[in-house]
């Protein structure tokens, strides 16, 4: 049996593989050193690489990301951790105004090869300020690459590409997936940025999903199969570059599209997917498209309330039935 690894351990494994091959890769963030990170996603790195490569910072989100930017412009490949993606708001200037623009506004004079990793999403009952899926925040900004893996192997393969990328990458690790397990990929496993994966082939409907919702979509596909509905599940893996070629090819086969998004419905990433599909693939469609996304409310604390708000298997199944029976 192949070795298995948790999604959580895949994060540190992915970083460690890159740190071993490139001495310019350096990590910084709150509690990431001896403590191994609040989610233990950097466990073991401090022991292997020591304090000159793994840097504990003060609670200074602007200084963390701003310093990473300055270091990236001057020959380092920093991997900065923002503990919870909600806290990106505290350093949003760097994601909205500085990092994505500096190359462009200087006419290409500087390069910013950095990764900002962050624990994203709900499902753990952390309440409104520690549970949001904010991948759509990043999607509003031209100049950021956006990664959100759904499996341990993809965490490792996409981490390799993110760290090697000469462009800035925001890397969303999903809190609800940390404990999940999957096969440990071989050394040198690299997943190119912007390549979606058809994780389950099907004929009747295309489910486009990302990170945690890939698992929701797969569970829904299992349930639908019992009723003879064959769902194809596309794991987008990255929001930028967005692999719309794979999505359009899938819709060409199934003629129906449902997006499954954890970010709020308002300005969620599915809106971009849908707009391109109806624009470039209108003739492919046999039914209206549906978006299953989080409701446009803050994330509530209680499990029962959170279930009301975020996408669930039942909601995806219902959406698929509505387009299949159209």
């Amino acid at each position, binding site marked *: 049996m192949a070795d298995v690894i948790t999604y959580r351990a895949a994060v540190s494994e992915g970083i460690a593989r890159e740190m071993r091959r490139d001495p*310019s890769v350096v990590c910084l963030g709150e509690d990431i050193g001896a403590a191994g990170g609040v989610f233990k996603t950097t466990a073991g790195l401090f022991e292997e690489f020591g304090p000159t490569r793994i840097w504990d910072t003060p609670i200074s989100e602007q200084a963390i990301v701003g310093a990473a930017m300055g270091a990236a412009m001057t020959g380092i490949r920093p991997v900065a951790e923002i503990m919870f993606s909600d806290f990106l708001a505290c350093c949003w200037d760097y994601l909205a105004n500085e990092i994505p623009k500096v190359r462009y506004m200087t006419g290409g004079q500087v390069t910013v090869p950095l990764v900002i990793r962050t624990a994203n999403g709900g499902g753990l009952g952390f309440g409104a300020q520690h549970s949001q899926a904010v991948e759509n925040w990043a999607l509003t900004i031209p100049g950021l690459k956006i990664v959100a893996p759904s499996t341990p192997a993809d965490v490792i393969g996409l981490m390799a590409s993110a760290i090697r990328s000469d462009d800035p990458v925001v890397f969303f690790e999903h809190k609800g997936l940390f404990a999940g397990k999957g096969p440990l990929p071989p050394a040198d496993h690299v997943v190119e940025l912007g390549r979606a994966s058809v994780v389950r082939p099907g004929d009747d409907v295309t489910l486009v999903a990302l990170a945690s919702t890939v698992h929701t979509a797969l569970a829904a596909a299992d349930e639908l199969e019992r009723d003879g509905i064959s769902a194809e599940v596309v794991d987008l893996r990255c929001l930028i570059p967005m692999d719309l070629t794979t999505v359009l090819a899938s819709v060409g086969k199934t003629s129906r599209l449902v997006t499954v998004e954890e970010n709020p419905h308002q300005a969620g990433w599915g809106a971009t997917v849908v707009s391109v599909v109806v624009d470039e693939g209108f003739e492919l469609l046999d039914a209206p498209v549906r978006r299953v996304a989080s409701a446009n409310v803050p994330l509530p604390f209680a499990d029962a309330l959170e279930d009301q708000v975020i996408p669930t298997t039942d909601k995806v199944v219902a959406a698929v039935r509505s387009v299949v029976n159209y």
Partner: protein
Amino acid sequence: MSETTELLDLYERMAVIRRTEKAAYDMFLAGLVKGTTHLASGHEAVAVGASAALRPDDYVFATYRGHHHALARGATPEACLAELMQKSTGLCKAKGGSMHLTHAEGNMLGSYAIVGAHLPMAVGAAWSARLRGTEQVALAFFGDGATNIGAFHEALNLAAVWKLPVVFVCENNLYMEYTPIGAVTAVDRPAADRAPAYRMPAQVVDGNDVVLVREAVAAAVDRARAGDGPTVIEAETYRHYGHSRTDPATYRPAEEVERWLKHDPIDVARARLEALGVAPDEISVVDERATSTVAAAIAAAKAAPDADVAEAFTDVWADGGAQWRM
């Protein structure tokens, strides 16, 4: 180089900046410079004095009031004026404009227009120098107004905690935009009085005396290079024009303006030259050379082709392009 030759060189650099700023102002009124400008006439000694204390491989980060910093680090008046005039030969290919002059060849790594945002970047560049084992120093110029934004405090704390080779140079021109800095700041010296809170030495210096600025910055740079950590320099200066564009700056008392105009950094340098025995004729030669340098730059910038429209879609990513989807 003798003291006299060196000072003549600094004088000429300041004279070129003064004339370049005057050209920018005149061409703004003539409609040849669009958007906005934040001119640095009156601030020349800070840029030139500090730059004279740096090595070519040291890093400089500046603000939207940054023409003088780009010029002091070797950007040509022609490339700066061409940028302001939206010409393809502009320093940033006409994609940055007045507020984002950048001369990466001279390790002048950008002018940033979100107040204070570049301070953590300078900390990161200094951290990078430490990681790479070079003896480079990072220097950030910023306004008095920037001392009241969070990024300033996060940057100072991190620089102090990691004992990084950074020099923080505040150009205290007594005003943020239109509000006197004293009216909105809890301490008398907006930068220098904050330094002790971060156990950092600070020095207040006459920012209109290029020799004193050079000495103060040289001491801070030596300290930084020796591994003794960051320093704050607060250089007292005054802008000759309004805050931006054509702001007539009527909020400044006439008596105050007059007092500062009598303490013009170019006059101060000239007096020093005369005290060293340099003949007025010799200074006139330098003045005339500065005038013709800038006149030639204006002519060349005017004659240059307009911005290349194809450049709208370059330089987003490190591959030179702007592709966001597959």
